[in-house]
């Protein structure tokens, strides 16, 4: 066996120009990832900043993060399920039930961390239950989660009581969406994030060279760090601006929910990209039979995926409750549809096998920005829904068309 000179490349070789043309080739062949959503996001941001004077204010900027947070977390959970070409229609009511469990815990005078634990565990239990039924009984997830969608609405109603509404008094829970890092904490958050990004970038290169494998030109890493650095800088600086019109009550800083969502995103991305489990999730979504033959415990992976989805839905419910400041019997019901829309708009395939959490984040921002921008311009909810629906259809069409194109073998 030749150890010195492999005739087969890895895609990491080649200078900057070759790498870039390779990327364009990939995009041309239909593998666009989150590129359309990214462009859409930028176009929408420019459009709304021109059309609404309020859009580009620091108050609205912070508001956008608060608005998008719960949606993004739910969409991240749905990405796991969508990769398996499954669906979880009950993620919204799971968020609602978990939020209801949160207020029950709080009302029982439990410590807020314990109340959060109860809410999260509710999500774990619900997801495990759905996973077992889908994997072991073999009912399509559409039907199982539709049944759960109905049944858990009932459960939520029973917990909350019809017409009931529980206010959240816990300042710690409210802080998630209503308090901000101090200006200094914001910059520390920025520095730590940048350090981690830089470290992981160089560590990955070191690992490859230690195994004798080529790396991409280091310029790409520098560009990545620079882009993230500038974006992060602008973001933190903008959020650190004073956004209260009342001098007596200053509001500034990065909303606490931002590092929370970022941490969830990094952690879950790590699971999907760097662990065996993550690899099995993709394999199962791509070809279940191949996964089974490779000895993967298909049922366990399925159960774990539904558990992760519902757990993230529960966290999304906590974030929602923090933002609204109360929990009622209908909370979360419609959010699952926005969550699915966010994932699909971001570029997650409905056909399974493809999808990244970053796409849920970008898609979540697209949905939130449409909601936010149209609201600022005084359009009513009807227009908002029409446009969001149109965008979703567009994204799903792009998915279907790129899939067709992808099936043509290009060499």
């Amino acid at each position, binding site marked *: *066996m*030749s*150890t010195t000179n*492999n*005739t*087969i*490349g*890895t*895609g*990491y070789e080649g200078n900057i120009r070759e790498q870039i043309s390779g990327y364009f080739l990939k995009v041309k*062949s239909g*593998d666009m990832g989150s590129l359309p959503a990214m462009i859409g996001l930028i176009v929408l941001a420019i459009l709304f900043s021109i059309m609404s004077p309020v859009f580009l204010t620091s108050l609205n900027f912070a508001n956008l993060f608060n608005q998008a947070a719960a949606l993004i977390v739910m969409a991240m959970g749905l990405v796991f399920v969508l990769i398996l070409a499954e669906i979880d229609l009950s993620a919204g009511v799971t968020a609602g039930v978990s939020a209801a469990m949160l207020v029950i815990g709080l009302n029982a005078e439990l410590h807020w961390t314990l109340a959060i634990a109860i809410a999260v565990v509710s999500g774990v239990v619900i997801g495990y239950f759905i996973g077992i039924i889908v994997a072991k009984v073999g009912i399509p997830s559409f039907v199982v989660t539709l049944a759960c969608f109905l049944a858990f609405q009932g459960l939520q109603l029973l917990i909350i009581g019809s017409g009931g509404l529980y206010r959240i008094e816990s300042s710690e829970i409210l802080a998630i969406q209503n308090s901000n890092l101090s200006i200094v904490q914001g910059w520390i958050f920025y520095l730590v994030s940048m350090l981690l990004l830089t470290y992981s970038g160089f560590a990955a290169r070191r*690992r*490859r060279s*230690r*195994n*004798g*494998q080529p790396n991409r030109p280091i310029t790409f890493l520098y560009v990545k760090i620079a882009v993230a650095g500038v974006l992060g800088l602008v973001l933190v600086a903008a959020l650190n601006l004073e956004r209260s019109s009342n001098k007596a009550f200053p509001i500034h800083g990065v909303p606490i929910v931002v590092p929370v969502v970022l941490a969830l995103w990094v952690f879950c991305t*790590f699971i999907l990209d*760097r*662990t*065996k489990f993550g*690899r099995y999730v*993709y*394999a199962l*979504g*791509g*070809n279940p*039979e*191949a*996964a*089974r*033959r*490779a*000895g*993967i415990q298909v049922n366990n992976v399925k159960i774990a995926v539904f558990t992760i989805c519902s757990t993230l839905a529960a966290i999304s419910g906590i974030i929602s409750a923090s933002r609204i400041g109360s929990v009622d019997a209908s909370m979360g019901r419609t959010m699952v549809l926005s969550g699915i829309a966010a994932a699909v708009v971001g570029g997650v395939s409905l056909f399974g*096998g*493809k999808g990244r959490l970053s796409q849920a984040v970008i898609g979540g921002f697209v949905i939130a920005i449409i909601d936010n921008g149209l609201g600022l311009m005084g359009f009513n909810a009807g227009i908002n829904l029409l446009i969001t629906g149109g965008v979703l259809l567009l994204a799903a069409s792009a998915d279907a068309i790129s899939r067709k194109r*992808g*099936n043509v*073998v*290009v*060499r």
Partner: protein
Amino acid sequence: MGAPLPVIELLGVEKSFGAVDVLKGVDFAVEPGKVTALVGDNGAGKSTLIKGLAGIQPYDKGIVKFDGKEISIESPRLAASLGIEVVYQDLALCDNLDIVQNMFLGREEVYRGTLNESAMEKKASQTLAGLSVKTVKSVRQKVERLSGGQRQTVAIARAVLRDTKVVILDEPTAALGVAQTEQVLALVKRLADKGVAVIMISHNLVDVFAVADKIYVLYLGKMVAALDAKTTNQNDIVGYITGTKSAQMGNK
């Protein structure tokens, strides 16, 4: 008789799907370092026999011996742990994963709890280079972008990635052009020379006679012949395959 002990031996194996009896008491033996060809007409039950060895569809009845010990291969995981690797007719690759990920699927290398991508990448390139594969541009290509021949190559490379005892190839040359067929057959021989027991299913008798040491013929779910490749010829084999030659277990 001085022959090496069979690594796999099947005695009176049966399998049915509902009312359809697909395997009706099949005897089969595979020796290490030999290429054993399994031939038979469409629907004779070849793939079904193989799936039993791979733990995909365990047999309903019969005795399975591995290294002389009676066992039952209930799962693909067990088959893999015994050192049985299968390359299926329908390949079963994950289109959304790249070549490295497919080759290592289910047996990823891990370093401190995380996937050791570059180590796997290196071994994948080395294995492919060892099979003198030149048609694949990059091991990080998604499998969905590969041609039929390239996919077959990936599937075989996957099977020989580790030291395996038994490699089962279900029509490995069916989708290949002349040059790649040559390469695959050369590889099949090389595997056997290394001491691997190779089972090859094929409809192409030229390929079979090119590499096989022993030829088994399945006819409608029954093993009608077990012949030494040196002492038989294509006409006889065709006779057994089509059922014009009578059922008899050949020179034992």
